[in-house]
């Protein structure tokens, strides 16, 4: 593919992992990017049965229909086998819900949906990740090791690497700083740490805090705090 249109990544929305009240501002911004108000919801980071997944669909529709006066066309996929990019391109955006990060990464790798996701975003389409869904976009998913069990037994913990070298830490609280620093001393990575009551919207390495709490970014030994509404660069 050539041309600017295909070189420009879509807008990324990273949710800190709170409930639908916590993500209200982020959700509103996400809706604004949907040209035809149509997005795909993938809740497979959660292991649920038929009743549980039906409840997931109830939840996502309630969350977005409460903040939209217009119809929002939400489709849920549980089975990612044999999906093609053209199937995905019918949607304005892709939404990965929260759950177990390792399970999600394992599922999307097994089905090659990881590559499709990257291609989708590279075609300029939006992506929303809540918690585990946000973490997989980062450089590594090692940031999940403190909250999620690696039951999928994943050895290669590289994420999709779509955030300019950053990994994502969700459900962030300031006492986590020590764990984050320990993680950073093991490599030369960078981490963006998002609390439950906030999210981040990223467009071309420019990030904006959307929510009611500050977001922190860690690079080497340096920690920067970004207030709600602040725009900062992921460098």
């Amino acid at each position, binding site marked *: 593919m050539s041309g600017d249109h295909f070189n420009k990544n879509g807008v990324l929305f990273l949710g800190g992992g709170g409930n639908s009240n916590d993500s209200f501002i982020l959700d509103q911004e996400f809706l604004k990017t949907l040209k*035809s108000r149509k997005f795909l919801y993938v809740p497979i980071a959660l*292991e*649920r*049965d*038929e*009743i*549980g*997944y*039906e*409840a997931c*669909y*109830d939840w996502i*529709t*309630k969350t977005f*229909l409460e903040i*939209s*006066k*217009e*119809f929002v*066309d939400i*489709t*849920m*996929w*549980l*089975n990612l086998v044999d999906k093609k990019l053209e199937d995905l391109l019918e949607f304005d955006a892709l939404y990965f819900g929260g759950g177990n990060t390792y399970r999600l990464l394992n599922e999307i790798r097994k089905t090659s949906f990881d590559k499709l996701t990257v291609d989708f975003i590279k075609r300029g389409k939006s992506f929303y990740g809540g918690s585990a869904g946000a973490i997989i976009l980062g450089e590594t998913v090692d940031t999940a090791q403190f909250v999620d069990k690696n039951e999928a037994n994943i050895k290669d913990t590289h994420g999709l690497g779509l955030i300019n070298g950053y990994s994502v830490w969700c459900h962030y609280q300031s006492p986590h700083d020590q764990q984050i620093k320990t993680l950073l001393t093991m490599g030369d990575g960078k981490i963006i740490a998002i609390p439950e009551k906030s999210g981040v919207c990223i467009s071309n390495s420019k990030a904006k805090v959307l929510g009611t709490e500050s977001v922190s970014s860690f690079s080497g030994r340096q920690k920067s705090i970004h207030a709600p509404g602040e725009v900062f660069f992921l460098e």
Partner: protein
Amino acid sequence: MSNELFRDEGLEIEYNTAFNAFVGRNKLVRVALPDLEKALCFPEGEENLNKLCKGEFPFLSPEAPLNLEKASRLFDPNFLATHFRLCNYDITPPLSIVNQKGSTLFVCAGVQVLDGVIHREDNLPLGKLFVAQPVVRTQFMDQVEEGISTCFINIATEIVNPSPEAHFESLDDWLVLLSQLGFQRSEFFFLLTSKERKWGSKKFRSEDFRIRYAGISLGTAMYIHDVSQENRPCIQISDIGLGLERIRWILSGGKYLDKLVENETLSALDPQLIDYCRSLALLSGSGVKPSNNDQGYRFRKFSKALVSRDILFHHDTYPLLDCFYDYWASWTDMVVPKSEAIHEIEKENERNFNRELIDRLGQKFSDVGVDINLPTSEVIKLLRGTSASKDEVEKILEELRGY
């Protein structure tokens, strides 16, 4: 089957004893399958396990019980009720699919007749229950094809606080039913798992037998244990639920909806178009009105999906809606009369057709934002006052209608 996840060690021992007895009396063999968890099958079916492992199981193997007469019996709710009544089950009327107090907007499994017991600590039913429950599973919407649908009848038996032995005896009742219908022992597999489940705010565990026949999933027999309750001890549930249409599908040789509508064989039509008509007939007949919220949202979504299929296939959907309304009415109380229910669907379909027309015109003309809730004839009239030419409107209408 060893399990470390029972809270009550005594119950675990009892479960394992009952499990072993079930395996023994049915002469099942246990097989460890890579990537397919633990499995059981009847001895004569052992060689088929390799096919299952390799994903090579041919649909409807030569031993499959093609039997149209028996398949047609399953259109009659009394046939199943009679079997389970003879096995001492109480026949429970199905719930409305509109789930007012449960953990989901729609009823999506037969076990939800126990939602009151599980979530609100209603009185425990004393006997064994059988229910033929219409269910809605939006999760299958993108997977609809021959054999997979968004609405179907989940036939289920439910027992609250059964001993593990009673649970396996209940599974025996199902195997008897299936063999009476002509299903062959050699084609059955039971895949065993132990799962953590979350329904609403309740988390618990279940020991599952996924029942497969000729490589096709028929349903699951679950022994659900340690469901916590606020004001009484934990409860156990035997929940065995199978898809009625699946059973009929196998018996009828792969025709999932083998019924004629005005001399047309449904299996010759687009499965998605059929499925959305079936679902809309159930929703509308159950009193759901299209809207942008809750249950009404699903109505709108199914209608939009139907309109997009109809644009491709240009099929008159009225006979399908008419037929499916009658189908659901034979299983559950439809609170909205047929003519009214179909009118509601057609009105919504017209609205979504208008939406499609306006969206397509909107790609070329910016002033075509007319009210899509009006009848299409009115919408067309209003479009004359916009910059879209008559020819352009006609051209798109022709594309959408196919004439």
